[in-house]
């Protein structure tokens, strides 16, 4: 930084009552984490129902219930993060369409309607054809629902670590990672081939997400000083360095290794461990990436 260049340019802030740093904390991490599972399980469920229609027929009810639970968690944490939570309805009464928050709220509402309709189709009407039609629409809606948070992060000007294309990829990968991991945890009755497919999805999602993080970690500092300063928080003695590597290890490295070993040995025993590791690690890695740009002084 320029203050280190020569004596004449050395500068120290001696009075600045900076506004509070971390505004979006663990509640927003919960929001993103739960949303990843709530949409990801539908992505992989859709794939399984297309590829293994008979062997995977039974998953319709569990994936619907899991989606409802995790989307409810997502919505709960979205609302409680508001400092004026009882004004949440303003988003519907006074929508401002340039905001990713508005877009996300409306899409989440539509998605919620669709998953409850799916629950009606599978639980009460017991109509698989109707369920599959609704699920097709829900999968399409799940894509922007997964991605809107990337738009929100991109709208956070000066938090240069968050760039739209990278965050979009990370959001989708988080969904496929957590969706496949969750499905592996509940999919004991699935045939080996389906579990192998899920393991491949889990392992490749972990690999791709890990590569994106490592790309930022090692090369991000070359594009902007703001990114370089933010990345210092996860490097060396940075206050989030340990947490960052714990997240990377559990979310990506362990699942990559275990899914590889599992496929090599045609054994599914390790997949449970890989799935738990991925789901827990995802929370940690998301949290670190959410918090560190907020440590950067803006003034």
């Amino acid at each position: 930084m320029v203050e280190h260049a020569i004596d004449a340019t050395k500068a120290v802030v001696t009075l600045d009552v900076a506004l509070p740093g971390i505004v979006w904390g663990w509640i927003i991490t919960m929001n993103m984490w739960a949303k990843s599972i709530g949409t990801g399980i539908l992505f992989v469920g859709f794939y399984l129902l297309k590829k293994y229609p008979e062997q995977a027929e039974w998953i319709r009810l569990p994936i619907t219930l899991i989606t409802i639970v995790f989307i409810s968690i997502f919505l709960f944490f979205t609302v409680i993060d508001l400092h004026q939570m009882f004004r949440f309805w303003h988003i519907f009464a006074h929508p401002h369409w340039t905001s990713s928050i508005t877009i996300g709220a409306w899409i989440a509402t539509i998605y919620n309607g669709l998953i409850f309709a799916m629950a009606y189709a599978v639980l009460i009407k017991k109509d698989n054809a109707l369920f599959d039609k609704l699920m097709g629409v829900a999968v399409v809606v799940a894509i922007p629902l997964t991605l809107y948070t990337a738009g929100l992060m991109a709208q956070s000007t000066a938090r240069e670590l968050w760039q739209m294309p990278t965050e979009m990829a990370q959001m989708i990968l988080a969904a496929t990672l957590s969706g496949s991991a969750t499905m592996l945890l509940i999919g004991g009755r699935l045939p080996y081939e389906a579990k192998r497919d899920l393991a491949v999805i889990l392992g490749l999602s972990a690999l791709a997400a890990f590569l994106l993080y490592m790309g930022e970690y090692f090369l991000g500092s070359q594009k902007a000083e703001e990114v370089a300063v933010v990345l210092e928080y996860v490097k060396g003695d940075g206050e989030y360095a340990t947490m960052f590597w714990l997240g990377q290890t559990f979310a990506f490295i362990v699942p990559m290794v275990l899914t590889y070993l599992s496929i090599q040995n045609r054994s599914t025993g390790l997949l449970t461990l890989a799935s738990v590791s991925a789901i827990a690690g995802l929370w940690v890695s998301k949290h670190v990436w959410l918090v560190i740009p907020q440590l950067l002084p803006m003034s």
Partner: protein
Amino acid sequence: MKLGFLVDLNLCMGCKGCEIACKVENEVPLSSWRLRVKYVDVGVFPETKRTFTPLRCNHCENAPCERICPVSALHYIDNGIVNIDNERCIGCAGCVMACPYGAIYIDPETNTADKCTYCAHRIAGGLMPSCVVACPVEANIFGDLDDKESHISKYIMQARGNVQVRKPEKNTHPKHFYTGGGNQQLNPLAAEREEGYSLFNNITKLETVGAH
């Protein structure tokens, strides 16, 4: 009409009169600031200089806070001010995250976002912003940027070549200008923040409702 601010940093002496006037005028709660004066010490002893920089909302023409606000609580008014409607705000803090200048905060009393409004209520009544009135050296210059005969327009014209905005690369088109300042004053990454070097080290923060 396009209202704007210019701060002549050659004149500012860091008295914080503007900061206090703003707090009183707008009833800004403890631990929150719509306007604050940053001190930066430049150089190495004995060749040092203390600089003073008033920081407030830049009322950008392309305001990220307005764009990210889900309920239009942050909105433009006809004179170019980015105003805030506290009754509509839901406290999502998107604007706090979007502002590249760190100029927006969550008011711990109303639990809504708040920031400098260029004293829009005073301007509506034909008065100048309170910080302008309080400044003993007239370092704060306020007026219509569209009017070439206004004091601010003439001042900017006279100081041309030495007029800056904060973070121009963010494409926000601020309507808040500085003259007489250096990079260390306007760029937050051009000055170190060493623990123990701040005149105020332990600021008590009032808790807000919601969030974490």
